């Protein structure tokens, strides 16, 4: 949007942006810094408010060491990474395959199956957690890694992303390959998938974040320490006699910097994927 703006307006834009920016940045930066202070000084400088709150002194790594040696949290971290990795790899493959079929093949029942896929991602997932618990219970899968992975892998939104991308690939490209004797599977893996790197990155991020941020589903379905997921494991630092704030903030910082490090360089793909599916409905 171009507009001839006055200095006063410029000034206002900056003030407003800085205000929003501070609200977004301060909690993250403060908790990172505070988690490098010893437990009894975590809240130093907050009340009364002083610059001490933003200085990591006396410096200690104790909280981070504590987090990594904490059984509940460290096994949840490992489990979450495994669950997320399996979800990303399987999710990208099977959703791309489904998107490929929708975009390139003419088949019986296409309309119905497409509306099922579409309605599945318009329905907020948390609403079905309790009946899904019933289902998983009757399958005998409560408190298993499989139960954490399966419901998240098939993802209507990701299928939709691939449909959009694949329908832009020229039909002639596919037909030429088929005439040359390639199978559909080869067309997908040799021609379509290599073209679709941005969509695959976007899809991977969406699936990764779905598991990284999972809360309600692991809350009801996981019981044992090995099947714990990190967002739930955060509560392990709140104990009967009080909260270990230093460790809790160290863990929270880890939970927020790991995805941010992934998202920052790849934000373009993530945003294009999320927004793309929405605005082309």
């Amino acid at each position, binding site marked *: 949007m171009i507009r001839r703006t006055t200095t006063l307006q410029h000034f206002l834009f900056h003030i407003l942006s800085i205000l929003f920016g501070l609200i977004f940045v301060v909690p993250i930066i403060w908790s990172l810094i505070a988690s490098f202070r010893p437990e009894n000084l975590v809240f130093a400088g907050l*009340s009364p408010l002083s610059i001490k709150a933003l200085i990591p002194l006396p410096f200690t790594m104790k909280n981070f060491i504590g987090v990594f040696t904490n059984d509940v949290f460290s096994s949840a971290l490992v489990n979450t990474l495994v669950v997320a990795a399996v979800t990303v790899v399987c999710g990208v493959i099977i959703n791309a395959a489904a998107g490929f079929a929708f975009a390139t093949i003419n088949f019986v029942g296409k309309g119905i199956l497409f509306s099922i896929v579409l309605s599945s991602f318009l329905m907020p997932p948390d609403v079905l957690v309790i009946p899904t618990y019933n289902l998983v219970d009757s399958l005998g899968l409560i408190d298993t890694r499989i139960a954490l992975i399966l419901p998240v892998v098939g993802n209507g939104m990701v299928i939709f992303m691939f449909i959009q991308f694949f329908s832009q690939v020229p039909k002639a490209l596919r037909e030429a390959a088929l005439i040359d004797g390639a199978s559909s599977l080869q067309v997908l893996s040799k021609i379509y998938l290599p073209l679709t790197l941005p969509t695959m990155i976007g899809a991977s991020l969406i699936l990764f974040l779905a598991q990284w941020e999972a809360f309600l589903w692991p809350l009801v379905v996981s019981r044992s320490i090995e099947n714990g997921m990190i967002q739930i494991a955060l509560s392990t630092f709140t104990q009967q006699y009080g909260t270990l704030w230093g460790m809790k903030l160290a863990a929270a910082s880890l939970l927020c910097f790991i995805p941010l490090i992934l998202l920052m360089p790849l934000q373009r793909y993530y945003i294009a994927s999320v927004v793309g599916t929405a605005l082309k409905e």
Partner: protein
Amino acid sequence: MNNRLKRDSLKAYMFLFPAVGLILLFKIYPIIIVFGESFYKVSYLSGSKVFVGINNYLDLFFDRSFWNSVWVTTKLNLLINPIQVVIAVVMALLINMEFRGRLFYRLLFFIPLGVSLAVTTIYWSIFFRPGNGVMNYILNSVGIPRQPFFNSPSQALWIIIGIASWKGCSFWMIFILAGLKNIPREIYEACDVEGIEPIASFFYITLPLLAKTILFVFVTDTAANFMLFIPIFMITKGGPDSSTNVLMHEAYRTAMLQGDMGHGMAMIVFLMLMLMTVVAIQFKVTGEREI
């Protein structure tokens, strides 16, 4: 049906089966389960299941705690959705302006995208800690007495709204931003030439052209906030005095903690119907002119 279509269909099903099968099993079948189970009662002790017809629904009708949750869910959504949409629009307009440093601000505005709601809840629960929290210190230093925040029935819901919005606004902003980018620059150039005030051009050009995007955000945001659970579960557990006990939390408590599946399912059915009604109304009210 000709042979080619038959052969193609078979091939297509092979590609579709894993993903669409999982979606049917975990996203569609549970909808059938929730309706079905809402007509049963599971005995907590013996685990046996008895068909009770519409009894679970009748019980809900006389359940004051349930109606309170319906009211809290309604109130939360009437407040949170307009707030989030307006802030998201303001944020998107800001970083879509051409002024120095906007790329830097944009990076800052995107930060909440990578922060989970559980972590967000931890941050703000520290900030709003009753007693010696940071916010109370700030209030105190400008002469306002300490506030109880999430220990107060009249303030707790607002804190929940704030927490959910910190995360939510950034997410919805990216949709609005994409909508803004779709508006041709030439229109604004023409405005400049004609000497139209920026505020007028916002209301007469930007807003109407953005209407479809805003409606989409409004509807999806409502769907998300109907299921808001994490900050309530983590901080207030529905309290104080059930002032933050949204339907999703009440259903979780009934089904998972009290083990009363039938009742929980009936609540979920009600929640889904409520959401569908609201979305239909949103489309009817806002949609007729623009879509």
